[in-house]
């Protein structure tokens, strides 16, 4: 087995086994696993855009988390708006519409950011970091201006969100399973897009050598706009499908950003497989550490929030280029 797969699998197994021994019974072990996969998938939806954008464009988009937040707000508002409720009484169809709206808003805002703010700064990488950081702050402030600073929790349920099933004496929410399923489907879908389509080949080639791609007659800037737009739309999508659980609040912008940056680094900068594996790994590690840190004997909740950075450091000690990165 190649070392990157070996190390990834070893870490995954270690996290899961640790989680198993922490759990008093199979039911709560199942809850931990499901919570881990759920967090991992949401993480992936932020980290995938971050990673591909960074790999291709050398832009570390600090606003990626803000797009997740905007997605949550848009999805919440559309779903709970009295006007939309009157027009579309069926909450399932309305939720579907909310998600579509969130994706559309994320895509438009992402496209605008790349086209009008980032593009003039490609010669100045430091400025770009400052810019995306600033845009994240502006977006958070704008959201608080429009929706006030009070967090919203999701009140109008729909059938998927409502249902649960019993296993090993525990109740599992169907919606979490659906989110996990969507996450896995997107991992495969984006992977296929990168492997099989012309635009995917151009993106992978651009990650290696942008200048050469351009010298072949390909307008790399158009590819940048497209990738940035899709990356932001995917983050918004993440916020939209997370909102029925997490609600909508300004804090969402930073909830996943730091963890997603940790995922991109520990997965190996610019590696798609590394980002997918890293999201899964960190999601599970987070869930396990939340259980561990909450034990009365431990009682150190801070351990859970330290997990992304600790895992990143651990991986970098073993593989300095990240799990799937070029060994550097």
């Amino acid at each position, binding site marked *: 087995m190649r070392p990157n797969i070996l190390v990834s699998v070893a870490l995954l197994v270690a996290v899961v086994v640790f989680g198993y021994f922490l759990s008093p019974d199979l039911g709560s072990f199942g809850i931990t696993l499901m919570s881990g996969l759920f967090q991992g998938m949401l993480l992936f939806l932020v980290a995938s855009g971050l990673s591909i954008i960074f790999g291709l464009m050398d832009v570390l988009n600090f606003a990626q988390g803000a797009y997740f937040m905007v997605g949550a707000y848009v999805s919440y508002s559309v779903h709970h708006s009295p006007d939309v409720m009157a027009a579309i009484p069926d909450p399932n169809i309305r939720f579907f519409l909310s998600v579509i709206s969130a994706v559309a808003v994320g895509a438009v805002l992402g496209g605008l950011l790349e086209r009008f703010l980032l593009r003039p700064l490609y010669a100045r990488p430091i400025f770009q970091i400052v810019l995306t950081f600033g845009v994240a702050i502006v977006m958070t402030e704008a959201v608080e201006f429009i929706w006030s600073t009070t967090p919203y929790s999701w009140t109008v349920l729909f059938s998927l969100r409502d249902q649960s099933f019993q296993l090993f004496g525990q109740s599992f929410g169907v919606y979490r399973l659906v989110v996990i399923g969507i996450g896995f489907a997107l991992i495969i879908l984006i992977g296929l897009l990168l492997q099989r389509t012309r635009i995917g080949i151009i993106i*992978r080639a651009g990650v290696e050598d942008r200048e050469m791609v351009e010298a*072949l007659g390909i307008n790399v800037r158009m590819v940048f706009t497209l990738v940035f737009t899709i990356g932001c739309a995917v983050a918004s999508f993440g916020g939209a499908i997370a909102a029925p659980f997490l609600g909508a609040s300004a804090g969402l912008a930073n909830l996943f950003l730091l963890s997603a940056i940790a995922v991109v680094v520990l997965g190996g900068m610019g590696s798609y497989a590394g980002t997918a594996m890293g999201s899964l790994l960190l999601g599970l590690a987070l869930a396990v550490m939340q259980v561990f840190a909450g034990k009365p004997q431990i009682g150190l909740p801070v351990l859970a929030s330290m997990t992304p950075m600790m895992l990143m450091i651990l991986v970098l000690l073993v593989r300095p280029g990240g799990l799937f990165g070029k060994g550097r």
Partner: protein
Amino acid sequence: MAASEAILEVRDIHTFIGQFHILEGVNVNLPRGSIGVLLGRNGAGKTTTLRTIMGITPPRSGEIRFEGQRLNGMRSFGVARLGIGYVPEHRAIFKGLTVRENLHIAERRSGDFARKADLIFDLFPDLKRLVHLPGGNLSGGQQQMLAIARALVPDNRLLLIDEPSEGLAPVIIEQLMHAIRRLSEQTTVLLVEQNFRMASQLADRYTIIDEGRSAVAGDMRDLVKDQALIQRYLGVA
């Protein structure tokens, strides 16, 4: 030779990289159907000349014309689309892409690769059995062949090839020379080449670049006889 016959005219270009004045007046004139070579010592500005023509390091002044059309101010994808193929030094193939993907990405219209596959595999038979391998798994010579093959996928009328022989074994260099000679039957070629033996056997025209300026240009047959000139600018016997 009348200027109208030239496929590429480079007139007094000055190129800066950062604050460094790299090209301080380079002229190149290349007749259609010929093989031209840029000669000169390391760091003289040969590679920068090719990169300036491609629009990667645009000139600050001077003029570049391809088939009469001005290239100044165009970005490199636009330059390439006019029909110029670029094979950079160090064989800049995409190592993570398969050989097939490396060729496919060069298509400018869909079907380019299918149209040219016979020509490409005829010139470089080795590539045919390697199509499914990642470019990074190829030997140096195979990578160089792939880099040239990639430039042949679209209908390019001018190829800029930077140091094709660099780091390759003599047998491979022979193969490459054979291939370049054959493809020059269909397109014009501008080479940068340190290997004087290879350059002198391939090229019809030469331009010597010295300290960022084009110093001498002319017919390759004349240069081969002029040992003093070779000694002065190239330091090879």
